């Protein structure tokens, strides 16, 4: 049996009396797409933050390719191959879309500081950046300031940046949040092409998207995984229906 790409054991996090992650264990196999669903406040974003290194867990371990990373800060984890998008679009607003992706390309050599050559004329950065923009359909908008992009475009830009990092794992926090129907469609199509070539953890409320993208679904309620499995199985799980889907 091959080792899981990402292994989480006994992860626990509380903010005061509020337990947001409760003894969580799960594995992520290489190439797999795991969707995490659950009601608001279930601790989904905090879980992503702990995987990415923005929030320190109170207890538990996280291993990437067998290497323990729970004590590594976010930038180290990113260099080890964890890329992420944020729930609220987080890019460099005054840089153009291409500049933003070029930075992501540059992040593959994040530890090397180059002080002299103009970065914007560096084809080793620009060419892969344009390719990533092409993939997410933003080629025409490459020169536009990130802050001037539409909401959907900005979300796609974040995906392009994650792609350009060539990560082992992509952590996507509600990539379709706030999008209209058509934008969501486009994003789902995009993610479907991407999921074949990388490993993904996806937080999503849109059940259509989950159904189409997830190989496996984990349901979080109050920090605990109450169910895990294929989308259809999970959907039929009475505990899940009761805690979450039943509300719909």
């Amino acid at each position, binding site marked *: 049996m091959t080792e899981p790409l990402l292994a989480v054991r006994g992860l626990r996090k509380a903010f005061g009396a509020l337990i947001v992650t409760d003894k969580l264990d799960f594995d992520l196999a290489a190439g797999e797409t795991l969707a995490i669903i659950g009601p608001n406040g279930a601790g989904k974003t905090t879980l992503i933050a702990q995987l*990415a290194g*923005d929030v320190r867990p109170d207890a538990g371990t996280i291993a990437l390719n067998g290497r323990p990373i729970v004590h590594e*800060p*976010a*930038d*180290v*984890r*990113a*260099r080890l191959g964890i*890329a*992420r998008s*944020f729930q609220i679009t*987080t*890019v*460099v*607003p*005054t*840089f153009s879309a291409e*500049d933003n992706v*070029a*930075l*992501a390309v*540059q*992040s593959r050599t*994040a*530890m*090397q*500081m*180059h*002080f*002299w*050559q*103009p*970065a*914007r004329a*560096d084809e080793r*950065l620009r060419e892969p950046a344009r390719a990533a923009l092409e993939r997410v359909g933003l080629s025409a908008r490459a020169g536009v*300031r990130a802050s001037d992009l539409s909401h959907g475009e900005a979300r796609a830009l974040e995906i392009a*940046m994650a792609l350009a*990092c060539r990560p082992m794992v992509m952590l996507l926090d509600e990539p379709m949040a706030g999008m209209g129907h058509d934008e969501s469609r486009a994003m789902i199509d995009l993610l479907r092409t991407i999921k074949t070539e990388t490993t993904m953890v996806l937080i999503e409320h849109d059940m259509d998207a989950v159904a189409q993208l997830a190989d496996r679904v984990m349901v979080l309620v109050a920090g605990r995984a109450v169910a895990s499995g294929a989308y259809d199985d999970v959907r039929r799980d009475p505990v899940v229906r009761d805690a979450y889907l039943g509300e719909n």
Partner: protein
Amino acid sequence: MYLATLLVLVAIPILAAIFGQPFWVNAATRIVIYGIVAMSLDLIVGYGAMVSFGHAAFFALGGYVAGILLTNGIDSAFVTWPAAMLAAALLAAGVGALSLRTSGVYFIMITLAFGQMVYYASVGLKMFGGTDGLPVPARSTLPLIDLRDATVFYIVCTVVLVAFFVIASRLVESRFGMVVRGAAESERRMTALGFPVARYRLVAFVIAGAVAGLAGALWADFSRFVSPDMASWTRSGEFLVMVILGGIGSLAGGLYGAAVLTGFESLFSGFTEHWMLVLGIVLILIVLFAKRGIYGVLAGRRHD
């Protein structure tokens, strides 16, 4: 605009000779040295969003190191200037490593605290003159070039200024610069991409500190006098004013800010004892109505 600026810088000594006003060279040298400091500060404030309220500490340390070397008979500029830069860089590395743990207003205040420590240290060091300051016996020397000549010294300072401007302009457009600028706007994103943001910032901070130290050494040579007020918080404040006045995040703006602040004082202090009142009003008007400072006015609308 850069061409015109360069032309003016070159024209000053010529015009000074024609009009028989050697003081112009003197005043211009002061502006150029302050311009170097303001530019170095702009590098971290304007591009890195690290608002240092203690930049004068590096300027002062550079000045003192050069001054002390010169007092002890070591006068080669190849020693005094690099020594000043190195000392300022080391101080900046220490201050930066501790200060960069904080951000925003806290960063402003902690750099102020370190600046005050340097200030009081220079006040307390009686062997280097304490509040009386340290008279510097002679200027640094360069082979073949006579720095004692005011015009020659001005030209050397201007060369340093232009060289630093070119280097800094490339720096902010380099891979390194893109990371520092990106982190200024979205630290989260740069961290999530895997950049060790604190390390990049520290390097920028050290570069700025070292250049301020070099400017301090030039100042020691120029005024042949170093004193604790080089490190005072009001001096740090003036440097910030120069940066903002000139146009933050424009590099060249630092020079314009230095020129206007220095020029303002010498022009108005002749007319009225209350020139500070006028300056206060002008500062407020600039903040409220000329958002990108003098650079913004000169350059017109910014393109990007």
